[in-house]
């Protein structure tokens, strides 16, 4: 179980109110996409789920327990950039989490202990499609491969919740479609709860089980400081999607996302949303 419950959360920086009265329940094994205009506090909200920032008012519960005040291994994360460590190879990046939990002082594994976890790491690297790249450094990988690596690195900790902050925003449309397929497969296999911030509407509706829209209810310049954004829409995709369950109807709808080129309603991938 990994249910996230956000109860009447406010976030203020000094006089500036960023988020007001946000309440949201993310069911276990759900995939929630957070969408909204730039600067409406989606990323701030994600950072609060991560524990990197604290709500000014209200509380966030994970499985009924208040969230710890700092990031921890129960919540994995993939950022748009800087998610992998440039000084470690692909294998080293994936092993790091295991080494942190197994070797408290040396934070590094040697010999048999290392060989035992390498097997699991290699499996995961192959799962995200990076087999054969184990010895490469991130600088030798393309942007899409780096994000695949970041996913593998987060997944080795088997987090309850995976948080994604525009993880595929910087990728080309073709690469993005491939990584969407991967993301969907990983979500079904691991049965995690996923919360993703995105600008891309198509991405939100392709991947998510719920699309949650953040918006400022009052957005006149003189109101900007005192009124924050809040959740204005919470759309459940129908037929319902749930990690580990194939959809009842039209099972192929959740199959690979073919890139159909740019269309008029596809604002994000042509860059107009940015």
């Amino acid at each position: 179980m990994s249910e996230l419950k956000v109860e009447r959360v406010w976030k203020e920086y000094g006089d500036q109110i960023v988020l007001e009265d946000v309440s949201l329940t993310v069911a276990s094994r759900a995939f929630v996409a957070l969408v909204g205009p730039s600067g409406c506090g989606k990323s701030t909200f994600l950072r609060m789920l991560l524990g990197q920032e604290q709500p000014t008012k209200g509380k966030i519960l994970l499985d009924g327990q208040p969230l710890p005040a700092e990031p921890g291994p129960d919540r994995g994360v993939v950022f748009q950039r800087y998610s992998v460590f440039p000084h470690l190879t692909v294998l080293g990046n994936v092993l790091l989490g295991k080494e942190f939990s197994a070797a408290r002082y040396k934070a590094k594994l040697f010999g048999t202990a290392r060989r035992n976890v390498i097997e699991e790491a290699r499996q995961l690297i192959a799962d995200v499609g990076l087999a054969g790249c184990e010895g490469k450094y991130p600088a030798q990988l393309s942007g899409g491969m780096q994000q695949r690596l970041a996913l593998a690195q987060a997944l080795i900790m088997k987090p309850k919740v995976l948080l994604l902050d525009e993880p595929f925003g910087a990728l080309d449309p073709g690469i993005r479609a491939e990584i969407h397929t991967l993301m969907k497969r990983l979500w079904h296999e691991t049965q995690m709860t996923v919360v993703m911030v995105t600008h891309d509407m198509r991405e939100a509706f392709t991947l998510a089980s719920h699309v949650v829209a953040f918006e400022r209810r009052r957005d006149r310049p003189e109101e900007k400081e005192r009124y924050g954004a809040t959740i204005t829409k919470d759309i459940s995709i129908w037929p319902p999607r749930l990690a580990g369950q194939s959809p009842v109807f039209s099972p192929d709808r959740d199959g690979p996302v073919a890139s159909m080129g740019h269309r008029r309603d596809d604002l994000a991938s042509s860059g107009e949303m940015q």
Partner: protein
Amino acid sequence: MRWINTRPSRGAQFALMLLPFVLLALAYVFGSAARLAENANDKLLPSLAGFADAINRLAFVADQRTGEFLLWSDTAASLIRLLSGLSISTAIALLIGMLIGMLPYLRALLAPFIAVISMVPPLALLPILFIVLGLGETSKIALIVIGVAPTIIRDLALKALELPREQIVKAETLGGSSWQIGLRVVLPQILPRLITCLRLQLGPAWLFLIAAEAISSDSGLGYRIFLVRRYLSMDVIFPYVVWITLIAVVMNALLDRLRIAVFPWSELEKQA
């Protein structure tokens, strides 16, 4: 073609690299020849033969008084001081720099203090060091440490702070403690910067070493230069200066090689 797009070939690059050195040597040879033609006993610009003679005397003939080969014993004495000073600075800087860069409490405590300390002119402290630590090796090594360490500390702290916050947060979500993150995420990423920083600090380190040796010492490259200055022995001073420069250049190149060999990713990051 625009000038900004014309590039020398490999051969031309090599020739261009050598050109300033050759010109400098030629200028010296002609200047020296002109002065010696006027006055055969001129000491200001000795001939190349004079240099050869002096180098032979210092490097390959034992000194009559001490029985030592002066160039080598001077080099050894200076290098021991320089390397001790640099190693102590490195150890201190790595520890304090990382603590300042990683822990907000220690940053609040130490960063302003180090910033002020690094503004104290080290040479102005030299008399104090001589008074407190005596005229031996300790005061000379201490001068190098005082001169070099604050700069390295500030640079490493900056580098540790520059690491993207995302990386640190990611490491936390992988279950890393402060110690583990320091050891596996921060330390390996500031070590290449440490080596680069050491290279840049070689100049100041030599400056402080020679200053200390000039004032009080009985051996060392700086001591020798300032000793023979009394006799206007340009034939000794010039080779010593060239020798010191050569040592510094080699150390600089070795450190860069070391960085690329030990941290290959730091070179990849640069190209990316």
